[in-house]
């Protein structure tokens, strides 16, 4: 009796309206009929959802990969099919919960649009024309190229073994370090960019510079909360989201939400103050002024731990950062600023929530510094109910035997940046300098994994040009993303439910180590990332060694001294030696070495381990668990070591304000007739990677443009009307959502939609891509992307 309700039919039913036309690009495109048919292999369920059974089943611990949080769960596997993902009650970080995305992870694993086989490009870049090849052929194409593109061997030969000609990028994830090992350490490329410079780099940086930590919050004991910009009800972070909202709404934590938009977080707050985008710094400075002016601060605490504290006090008072000064800048009434500052300082355990969100304004680094100092003024740091430093479990470090490439040049993406980050650089500066020809040597290769800069780095037009400029693009991913469509070789990876990942340590207050175990074997012809790294390393090692031998004088010297074989093995030129053991075996080795065999047994069975877990962990009621008894939690760990760096002189050496200072160029203004576009999240989507997820798309069919109701009425725009959004760098079309929840001069759109990859049945042509509209502005400290600086025009179409 059961009939299959296909994704296609579902699409026709509820989403067809939002999907614009376009047929597959011929039979050589990614998904011919034949390939579709084989998706019905035994391990892939026939229906979108599968009712769980009552018979035999395995419960395999996994770590969620739908976003960056790494919540723990158990995958229920019945007859080789994952039928359900359940939360893992042992992990203190995710506290026995999975969010909607976590629950919908099955749909990502069984996405019929998955990359199933290695592919080599046979058409024009971006045309989506690929040929299915064997893994060996794919590796060979990376090394030797094809008629259409050059391989690594030729490129490195032409570049005289300058390994910096290879650029690489990788999105967040547990196998990210392996990819860094492969391309960075083993292949010798310094040119690495990742999600950090398009995410929260300044938040982490600002807090580290000020307090030496990007703290965790003890919501269980705090009683006053200012949450600005961060939208914890919709951008779910564990354990913050779970802990916070159990105590809002008059149940312990008085909450002030500062956000230009009325978010679900605002809906849970006691007070919502719509701030002008990018002006939170003025709000914090004014509150700081109130505190100093009325001597509300914990003077003893600051005297003891503050660095440059008196100067900061003088700085704030002398600049006259009064609430009256701030009101016209940030749009928050002076009266409210006074009240909040006083309430905050009078509270028992107040918290100015430190993060976490992308960078919205160029002053974000200073904002974070000001927030951290403001928090410190209450003295509520390194203690119950406050900012927590905690005591993370340290896993033994791993050593990679990396060869030294004498010909490799250093990275160059430093233009306009005060403190370039050596490790992950700045996406925008790296890309733009190459596009503008400011790179000191050619960058000709992009090795990419699990990263979609076409939809995540502001100014998609430039990213497209950047990718087109490369001689060789390689992508390792699970879905044919917009960026994958620019790859010459695509290597299909196992999704997070099909792979065991390197063991990881999480948490400060209640630390634990966790392991993601493969729930099922890799589907289709996909492989686990570490297997791909190893095989690719094996393939490349000898031929590229030959090239180094040709150009690398140091290497020639060493070979002369010690013999080729010895140098190859001992100096790390054998690229594959970093993956000698499979991940699971390596995890076992690490954990047994650090915590003993019993620990490994627990970890392997439950997915989680921490010292005394068997003794500490117990169920308190149907919904709650104790992970650590209260007296064993790491509330206060810093003692006298903590510092509050109010004045950071080092910053001044590179032209950055050593103390948070307001500059009027940051004032918010929008020309008449235009709108400031702001972006953000809903709980049902993470990034572009989740917009092809059938389950989640069922909840939110497309990204709508929030526009103020009154303004929309004047413009004749109604709910569901198609509108064009246009900035100086790009445009898009999406449906309108007139609402009172946004200011008249602003519009909001959900990030991650508007894919142009025809391989993504549900995501293709659906909604608008915010990255295509946002200007590629950077902030001055790290060169990280600023997301809320773009003005747009809106037109009904």
């Amino acid at each position, binding site marked *: 009796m059961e009939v299959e309700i296909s994704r296609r039919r579902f699409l026709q039913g509820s989403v067809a309206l939002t999907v614009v036309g376009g047929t597959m690009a011929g039979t050589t495109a990614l998904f011919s009929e034949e390939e579709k048919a084989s998706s019905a292999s035994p391990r892939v369920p026939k229906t979108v959802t599968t009712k769980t059974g009552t018979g035999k089943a395995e419960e395999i611990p996994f770590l969620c990969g739908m976003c960056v949080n790494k919540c723990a769960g158990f995958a229920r596997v019945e007859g080789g099919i994952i039928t359900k993902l359940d939360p893992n009650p042992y992990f203190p970080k995710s506290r026995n919960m999975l969010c909607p995305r976590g629950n919908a992870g099955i749909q990502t694993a069984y996405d019929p649009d998955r990359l199933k086989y290695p592919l080599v490009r046979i058409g024009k870049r971006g045309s989506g024309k690929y040929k299915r090849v064997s893994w060996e052929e794919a590796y060979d194409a990376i090394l030797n190229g094809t008629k259409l593109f050059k391989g690594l061997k030729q490129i490195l030969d032409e570049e005289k073994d300058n390994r910096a000609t290879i650029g690489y990028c990788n999105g967040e994830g547990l196998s990210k370090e392996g990819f860094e090992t492969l391309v960075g350490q083993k292949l010798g490329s310094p040119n690495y960019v990742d999600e950090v410079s398009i995410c929260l780099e300044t938040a982490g940086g600002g807090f580290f510079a000020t307090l030496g930590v990007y703290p965790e919050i003890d919501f269980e004991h705090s009683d006053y909360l200012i949450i600005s910009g961060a939208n914890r009800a919709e951008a779910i972070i564990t354990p913050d989201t779970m802990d916070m909202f159990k105590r809002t709404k008059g149940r312990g934590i008085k909450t002030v939400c500062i956000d230009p938009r009325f978010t679900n977080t605002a809906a849970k707050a006691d007070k919502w103050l719509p701030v002008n985008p990018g002006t939170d710094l003025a709000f914090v400075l004014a509150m700081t002024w109130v505190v100093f002016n009325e001597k509300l601060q914990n003077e003893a605490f600051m005297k003891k731990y503050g660095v440059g504290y008196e100067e900061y006090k003088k700085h704030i008072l002398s600049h006259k950062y009064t609430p009256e000064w701030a009101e016209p800048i940030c749009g928050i009434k002076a009266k409210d600023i006074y009240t909040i500052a006083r309430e905050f300082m009078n509270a028992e355990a107040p918290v100015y929530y430190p993060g976490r969100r992308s960078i919205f304004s160029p002053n974000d680094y200073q904002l974070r510094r000001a927030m951290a100092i403001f928090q410190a003024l209450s003295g509520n740091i390194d203690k119950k109910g406050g900012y927590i430093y905690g005591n993370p479990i340290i896993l033994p470090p791993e050593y990679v035997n990396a060869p030294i490439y004498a010909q490799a040049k250093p990275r160059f993406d430093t233009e306009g940046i005060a403190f370039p980050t050596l490790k992950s650089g700045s996406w925008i500066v790296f890309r733009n300098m190459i596009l503008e020809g400011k790179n000191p040597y050619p960058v000709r290769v992009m090795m990419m994994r699990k990263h979609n800069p076409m939809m995540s780095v502001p100014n998609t037009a430039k990213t497209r040009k950047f990718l087109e400029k490369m001689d060789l693009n390689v992508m390792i991913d699970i879905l044919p993303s917009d960026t994958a469509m620019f790859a010459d070789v695509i290597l299909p990876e196992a999704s997070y439910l099909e792979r065991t990942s390197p063991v990881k340590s999480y948490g400060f207050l209640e630390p634990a180590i966790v392991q993601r175990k493969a729930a099922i074997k890799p589907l289709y012809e996909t492989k686990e990332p570490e297997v791909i790294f190893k095989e690719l390393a094996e393939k490349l090692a000898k031929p590229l060694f030959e090239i180094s031998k040709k150009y690398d004088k140091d290497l020639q010297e060493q070979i002369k001294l010690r013999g080729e074989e010895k140098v190859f093995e001992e100096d790390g030129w054998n690229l594959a030696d970093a993956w000698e053991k499979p991940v699971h075996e390596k995890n076992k080795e690490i954990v047994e070495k650090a915590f003993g065999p019993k620990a490994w047994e627990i970890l392997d069975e439950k997915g989680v381990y921490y010292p005394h877990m068997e003794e500490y962990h117990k169920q308190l009621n149907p919904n709650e668990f104790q992970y650590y008894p209260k007296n064993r939690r790491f509330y206060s760990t810093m003692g006298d070591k903590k510092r509050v760096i109010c004045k950071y002189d080092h910053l001044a050496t590179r032209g950055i304000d050593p103390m948070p200072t307001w500059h009027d160029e940051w004032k918010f203004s929008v020309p008449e007739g235009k709108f400031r576009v702001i972006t953000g999240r809903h709980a049902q989507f993470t990034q572009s990677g989740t917009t092809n997820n059938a389950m989640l798309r069922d*909840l*939110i069919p*497309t990204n709508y443009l929030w526009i103020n109701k009154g303004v929309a009425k004047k413009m004749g725009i109604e709910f569901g009307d198609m509108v064009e959004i246009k900035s100086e760098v790009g445009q898009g079309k999406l449906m309108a959502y007139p609402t009172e929840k946004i200011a008249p001069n602003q519009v909001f759109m959900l990030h991650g939609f508007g894919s142009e990859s025809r391989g993504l049945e549900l995501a293709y042509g659906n909604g608008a891509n915010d990255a295509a509209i946002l200007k590629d502005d950077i902030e001055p400290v790290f060169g990280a992307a600023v997301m809320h600086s773009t003005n747009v025009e809106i037109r009904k179409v």
Partner: protein
Amino acid sequence: MAEAVTNEGIVAKVKAFLATIPHNKITLRDLLNYPKTPVNNFIALLTVLFLAFFVIGVGNYLIHGHEAYGVTREHPWGLLIAVYIFFVVSSTGLCIVGSLGDVFGFKDFEVISKRAIFGSIVTILSGFAVIAFEIGHPIRMLIWNVLTPGLRSAIWWMGTLYGLYLTFMIIEFVFLLKHDMRRAKIFGLIGLLVGLAAHSNLGGVFGFLNTRLISQGVFYPTYFILTAFITGIYLAFIMMGFRYRLNFPENIRKMLVGLAKIQGLLLAILMFFETWKMMTAIYGGVPGRSDVAEHILTTWPFWAEVLFGMLIPFLIILKSKGQNVTGMFWGSLIGMVGIFFMRYDLVHDTQLKPLQMMETRVYQLPPEWVHYTPSVTEIMISLGGLGICILLYYIGTKLFNLDADTEH
């Protein structure tokens, strides 16, 4: 073996019984043999078209299931339910009209008894034909209605009683054909009572909906009987109009004038009821009822119901004090259009107010009024029901003598 013999025996008995029922021997040729006037040709063509619609509509339903219909989670009952009610109300109405003569002994109305009773059989069969494709599992219904009867369910009573009603109507009709007026009267009375019970239960289906305040309560069960009578009289005019091509013999005319006078009274009562229903609903101020009632006043099908179903026929009757029977023939055709909207409104208005007034999707307008548009398939099956009705009636006029037996 013995069983088979018995079965054969029963079959033979039934055959023998059927042979005793007076009827004309007809062939397909007889059916096609009608006066080829433009009007007749048009009706014949329309009937064939409607029957074709029925086949196409049902085919589409069998392939696509309920997705071929415009019904939704919020509006699970659609056009087919309205059409079903339209037919069974017609049936009950004709039963009442038919009973005036042969059950209650009003001599003047005996001339229409047989025709009306046959009409009631035809209309209910058409109704069943339509509802069979609205209910998801009609066969299953027959089984479980008997095995696990839901005695607290108005739908169970309605369905079961209508089944019985159909049986009694057929029996009554057979006795009428056989001039057995005594038995006809007995079964007519039982049939009428069962029919009235069934019909008020149909009203009860809506009346029991405690969460649908606009329909909940005593109004519909009683109003259903009233409107059934009205519908029966409209149909009596239509049937007689066609039978005598508007050239009514005196006895028929006399009967129709009588019916028109009754109709005038009934319409007056209906309008009175309807007015007070809306008044109490609106001025009662109860959320879920007053807002719905106010909204109903802004919808055109409501005014179609009032205008066609009540006002125009009422004015025709009033103007000639019931004497203008030809006018009432046309008035009755208009009246039946109104009656259709009355049924449609009943079904649709019951479901107007969403039970979920909150937004359950991140991007949606706040729920306001539930919208429903019948799908092409639903419209086809509905018209098909009308086609079946006309065809069965036409066959009946050929097969049986539906006129009153002159000598008795």
